[in-house]
């Protein structure tokens, strides 16, 4: 059994603003085991990135308020000093960001930027850092790394830059790699390459990966476990099979229904989830998804559903519908044409 690497418990992240307190993350708990790949899925503003930025304590907004605990290898990161946190960043937990075009400093060579991180965390002799940087660039599939190491970020394409970012993130063999929408800014063929790369490197480096995305298709291949987030909360959690073959929450159905799939009988209009995510300042009473949920009924307005296991071990969801109702109704959202023919 793999060791527990990260345990987030009842994390709440809010921001004080002029209009009131924005509850970006509203009490979420999850764990990541060593070597595990966890996908966090949800639309923009659902709190995915804020959650993982909190783990790194990278939110610099002075108006942020944290509650709850983030235990990494038995140590609560909320309580450690700034200096101790710096040692965790980059060396223990590394992060890849969404936009490779802006995530690298334009005025330094990529080699310099990788070496900077290595020198920060290790006592390296002259030349060692450079050799290691070349090695890393080779591992992430940059051709002619000996020459490219002295190039500046603007001399690389988007996909290549994301490879450089991955090399940077992996440079100190982190135990946990957080990838925040690593493929969103890239075109589809490059997306596939980058995901393949992350998959292979995970095997090679043995890091656990938390993959943040708004695209269930991205995590389908790579994630062991999937968390679906909506409005700052986890609405469904389960392993890959459970989420894809037995989805419990109507929001997950909506996400599944909005993926273009090649294994469908015929092309159709993709279903979209109607409406907008709720205000994080004035959350609707009851279930946050109720205003957009076609399945909503009386109880959804009155009572906030809790995340509980109803259908099996490790498969949690926050919905008042009975399991039978869900199974009967979900195909109308996920596979409308299958539902029609049935």
């Amino acid at each position, binding site marked *: 059994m793999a060791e527990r690497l990260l345990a987030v418990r009842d994390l709440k992240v809010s921001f004080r603003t002029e209009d009131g307190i924005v509850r970006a993350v509203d009490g979420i708990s999850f764990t990541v085991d060593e070597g595990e790949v966890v996908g966090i899925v949800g639309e923009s503003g659902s709190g995915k990135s804020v959650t993982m930025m909190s783990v790194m304590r990278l939110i610099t907004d002075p108006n942020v308020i944290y509650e709850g605990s983030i235990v990494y290898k038995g140590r609560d990161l909320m309580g450690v000093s700034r200096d101790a946190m710096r040692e965790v960043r980059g060396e223990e937990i*590394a992060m890849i960001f969404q936009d490779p075009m*802006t995530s690298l400093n334009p005025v330094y060579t990529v080699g310099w930027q990788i070496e900077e991180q290595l020198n920060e965390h290790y006592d390296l002799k002259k030349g060692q850092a450079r050799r290691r940087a070349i090695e890393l660039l080779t591992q992430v599939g940059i051709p002619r790394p000996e020459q490219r190491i002295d190039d500046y970020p603007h001399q690389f394409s988007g996909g290549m830059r994301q490879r450089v970012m991955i090399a940077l993130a992996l440079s100190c063999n982190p135990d946990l790699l957080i990838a925040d929408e690593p493929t969103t800014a890239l075109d589809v063929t490059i997306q596939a390459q980058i995901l393949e790369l992350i998959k292979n490197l995970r095997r090679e480096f043995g890091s656990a990966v938390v993959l943040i995305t708004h695209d269930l298709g991205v995590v389908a291949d790579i994630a062991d476990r999937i968390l679906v987030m909506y409005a700052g909360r986890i609405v469904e959690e389960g392993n890959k099979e459970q989420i894809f073959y037995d989805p419990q929450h109507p929001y997950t159905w909506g996400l599944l229904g909005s993926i273009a799939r090649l294994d469908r009988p015929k092309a159709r209009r993709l279903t979209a989830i109607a409406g907008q995510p709720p205000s994080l300042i004035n959350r609707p009473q009851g279930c946050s998804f109720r205003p957009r949920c076609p399945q909503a009924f009386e109880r959804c307005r009155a009572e906030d559903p809790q995340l509980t296991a109803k259908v099996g071990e490790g498969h949690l969801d926050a919905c008042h519908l009975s399991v039978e109702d869900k199974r009967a109704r979900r195909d109308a959202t996920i596979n409308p044409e299958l539902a029609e023919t049935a």
Partner: protein
Amino acid sequence: MATFIVRRVLWLIVVLFAISVLVFLIFFAIPGVDPARQMAGRNPTAETIRNIKHEFGLDRPLPVRYGLMMKHIFISRDLISYGSHTKVIPEILSAAPVTLSLVFGAAVIWIVFSILTGLAAAVFRGTIIDPLLMILALIGISIPVFWLGEVVNLITQSRLHHFFLFSWVPPLGYTPLTQDPVMWFEQLLLPWLTLSVLYIGFYARVLRANLIETESEDYVRTARAKGLSERRVLLRHTLRTSLITFVSLFGLDFGVLVGGGALLTEVVFGLPGVGLLTYNSLTSLDLPVIMTTVIYGAFFITLASALVDLVYAWLDPRVRPA
């Protein structure tokens, strides 16, 4: 790199030529301005004016007169001032070190202090220190340099000169660095500070705004995610990229000041620099001096902008020629 320098030098020549032609035309081709009349003193006879015109070649066609003037500036270097009848080139050459001393010293002070102030304001954003520094900067920008200079003189030269804090201040004037370095420094220290106040305020505000803007860039977040110290993130990542605007401003201001823009400071502190020379020649329509000081000023401004481009390329690899 070599092509860049060659291109810049050619450009410099073109600019200087264009400026000299323009200035020449402004003073000679515009009706109502007659240098001969200026030189002839009060109520001259037509005879005197004619003589002066002939003596200074003013009765020849415009292009010839332009050519003659350029020849006297650049080749024989013996252009004679209409006003004082002395040679212009040595006059400029003796004024240039004064202005250069003044501007270089002030530039060092304003770079150091504006970076410190800008950094401090950006780092202490959200505390009382930031608005306090920015108000100080605004005051610095708003104080006219001639007023500040006069107040400084009033304090250090007359009212409080015998107070122990200011008793070291020498009389106004300029002593060449080669002659007496200590005196050079002492006489220039107050002019440096006075001249730099405006620029410290201005540059500190610009830098603070740039730092705050850069702070929200993704690569600064990446730098933090790498586990770098706040100090390193600030100096190596945020400040480094924020300096690009700073440098372009500096190049222009520096060129303008060296080219004669420090006139007010020179007048207030009695420094016989290029600004003062230009000012005097303008009031007496002393064309040879105007011509030479304008070319001198244009030379430094163009040179400064070429240097800015070089520093730019060093600071920002994206603008480097491939």
